[in-house]
């Protein structure tokens, strides 16, 4: 069989891979994208970002209808949830977006290869399809974008039925009566939120003393208290030691402050982190360095591995394991292949948690600034004082801006509240433009909008907020 030759072969069709493919094609390169799933989009589209947001949307609306419509004078009888219908809607959205990526591939003349990729030489990739058949392609450059998969707890192995990962939790056939969520990171909180709203009794088990350990502490506790009010139960300093089936349920054994605890549930969702898919790619043999502890592939600032024509991006390499970070790196790698020097600034990558209220951040947390001994000023503005939030009836949360004590440069922004996910884009733009808090304070924001809270927080840095 003739071996087809490409300029770039991309292993992985997730947000990192497919974006790299499209960018490379825009730059005039001949591109092949190898993805083992039938649908493109990777974890993000198929079992991550998109399905979870769809379910969060559905469950939030259910919550609104159940608890908040009457505040508006809207009388509805007690709403019911048709889980299969909700899942079907989610599936339809995922399929639609997946088809969208496929047509983008067609438009950009990217060769789509279904199968598992393995690098067998610095310019050769072997593809194994579902049936086990092997083929090869040649490529001048290779971008590895195989992403990550959920980490597992050795003491509580996943069986896909009772002990599940987020992928399965997005496909439950019915609302679990009791749900245990192991890990109070963003996945645990989002998935916990979905099912709590729909009626589950959710117990979150977290090894550390607090939720969202990497987030700004004040913002994380604000969110945590809100989630508790919504019915999420938090158990901190709780270490899972094992679990066993009991009929149609699962018993989880834990230890907390020396005491033994047990939780009974219909399902246990394990979300204790994700690990890079760097094994089985054949890269060590080529001299590409993989960190044995983290599983991350070592790359330079231009996303190049130790082999000059092989790049690695996304969850495989250091930095936040976020889809948009992978996308930025995909673009950078494609540009660097043709001689560019594009780098990705990790300081301006936002992060969002899609609970309600949402939590979004960019830049440094107060803890990070304190540790680096950087003097800073704080400007805060609560949504309860924001007119738009009041009309929406969404008054929980606040905007917090951290500015450099001397230069007034914006160092960090943390938002807990309605639409924080969209509001953070303004903050990222300001940070990219090296703006000071005063720059924001002197920029007009439409009224009445949630974005005014951002402006007022900036004004609050110099104690000049008007509406508080």
């Amino acid at each position, binding site marked *: 069989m003739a071996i087809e030759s490409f300029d770039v072969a991309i292993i992985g069709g997730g947000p990192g891979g497919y974006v790299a493919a499209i960018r490379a094609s825009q730059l005039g390169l001949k591109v092949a994208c190898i993805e083992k799933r039938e649908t493109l989009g990777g974890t993000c589209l198929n079992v991550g970002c998109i399905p979870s947001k769809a379910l969060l949307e559905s469950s939030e609306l259910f919550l609104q209808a159940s608890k908040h419509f009457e505040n508006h004078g809207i009388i509805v009888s007690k709403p019911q949830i048709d889980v299969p219908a909700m899942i079907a809607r989610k599936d339809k959205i995922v399929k639609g977006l997946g088809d969208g990526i496929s047509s983008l591939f067609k438009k950009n003349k990217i060769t789509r290869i279904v199968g598992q990729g393995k690098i067998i030489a610095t310019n050769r990739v072997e593809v194994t399809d579902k049936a086990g058949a092997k083929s090869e392609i040649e490529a001048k450059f290779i971008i590895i974008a195989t992403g990550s998969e959920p980490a597992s707890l050795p003491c509580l192995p996943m069986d896909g039925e009772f002990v599940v990962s987020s992928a399965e939790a997005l496909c439950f056939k019915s609302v679990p009566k009791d749900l245990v969520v192991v890990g109070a990171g963003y996945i645990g909180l989002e998935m916990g939120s979905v099912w709590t709203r729909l009626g589950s009794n959710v117990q979150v088990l977290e090894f550390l003393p607090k939720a969202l350990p990497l987030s700004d502490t004040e913002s994380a506790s604000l969110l945590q208290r809100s989630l508790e009010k919504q019915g999420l139960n938090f158990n901190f300093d709780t270490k899972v030691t094992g679990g066993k089936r009991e009929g149609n349920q699962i018993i989880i054994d834990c230890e907390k402050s020396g005491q033994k605890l047990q939780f009974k549930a219909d399902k246990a969702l394990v979300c204790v982190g994700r690990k890079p898919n760097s094994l089985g790619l054949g890269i060590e043999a080529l001299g590409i360095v993989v960190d044995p502890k983290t599983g991350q592939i070592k790359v330079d600032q231009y996303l190049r591995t130790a082999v000059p024509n092989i790049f690695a991006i996304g969850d495989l390499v250091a930095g936040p394991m976020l889809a948009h970070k992978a996308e930025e790196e995909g673009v950078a790698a494609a540009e660097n292949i043709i001689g560019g020097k594009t780098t990705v600034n990790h300081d301006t990558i936002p992060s969002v948690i899609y609970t309600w209220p949402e939590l979004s951040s960019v830049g440094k947390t107060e803890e990070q600034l304190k540790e680096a001994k950087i003097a800073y000023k704080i400007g805060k503005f609560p949504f309860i004082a924001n007119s738009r939030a009041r009309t929406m009836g969404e008054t929980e949360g606040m905007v917090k801006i951290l500015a450099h004590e001397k230069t007034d440069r914006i160092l960090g922004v943390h938002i807990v509240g309605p639409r924080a996910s969209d509001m953070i884009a303004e903050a990222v733009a300001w940070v990219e433009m*090296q703006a000071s808090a*005063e*720059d924001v304070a002197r920029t007009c924001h439409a009224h009445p909008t949630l974005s005014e809270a951002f402006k007022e927080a900036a004004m609050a840095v110099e104690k000049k907020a008007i509406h508080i």
Partner: protein
Amino acid sequence: MITEIKVPSVGESISEGVLSKWYKKTGDTVKVNEPLFEVETEKATTEVVASHAGVLTTLIAEGEKVLIGAVVGNINIAAGGTASPTIPASVSSASVSSETIPTGAASNPAARHLAEKAGVDLSVVTGSGKGSRILKEDVVAHVESHAKPTAVVPKDARREVARETRQRMTPIRQRIAERLLHAQQSSAILTTFNEADMSAIMTFRAKYKESFQKKHGVGLGFMSFFVKAVIEGLKAYPAVNARIDNQDIVYQHFYDIGVAVSTEKGLMVPVLRNVDELTFAEIEKKIVELAVKAKENKITVSDLQGGTFTITNGGTFGSMLSTPILNPPQSGILGMHAIQKRAVVVDDQIVIRPMMYLALSYDHRIIDGKEAVSFLVRIKECLENPERIFFSV
């Protein structure tokens, strides 16, 4: 359009010098007549100003030897006369505000606001942001290092008036300071005094004021008399019109008289050329011309160069008597002062006469005391009896 900046000629026999100082740097927006750089030659240090407005690019570094006529930089003149950056800066802000939007490198809102408040021209601020974007902290730093009396006062008003105000010397002020110090230290400056009865001149002025103005379109001032008297003195005592060049005394057989003019930027001494060939009217016209030029900041380098002697008039400010400093490489300078009615003795009678003190500062290395005194006496004679100028007695 790019216009080249060349090292101007600073004197006939000079072919090279050293570019001793840049006042501006690459990327700066410069205005017409704004000082750009300094050229040091063995004879003089000359300040060169911008001939056009635009964005500067320097090509030769400070301290480099340059030939006269060499290209040391260029100015990028944007169409319409507004400066546009030659560096790949981001597009200047398009937002509308009630404050003036400067052209040039882009700037953040707080930076513009602070610049407006502190009276800082954004075109002189170096932006440290991406694409040379001017950030708030850049303007803050600029204000701190160039603190003028109009610098931003913290909003919580100061409780008492500051005891000191610090202000950086402008490049021209620095140059003036350097030259004065140099003059003081490299020549042996002495001053000799005399006084002159101005009544004769005043009589002439009163008599011919109108007809002079009518005929020549310029007033008959004192300066033409002073200048004419000085020529008589210089002709009689050539050493006063000479200069020292290393081990040589160079006697200059032409009379280019510098007339000191006070401007906002400092003292300037533009030169009247070949004054011995000019009539009274021509002298007065030339002086008016130079005064206007100085006021409008249009004095060029060549206007300031090559004088052989200088006249300065402190009288316009009320000075009774002073000791002028030499204007190197000249060897003499005549100071005129205020005309005051004083009681003096004429023919053993005490009379009231309009008297003016004269001061001649001179370089004692080549002008002896006797010469200096005699020179000043000659001036006095010509002022008290202007007809002496006609008759050359």
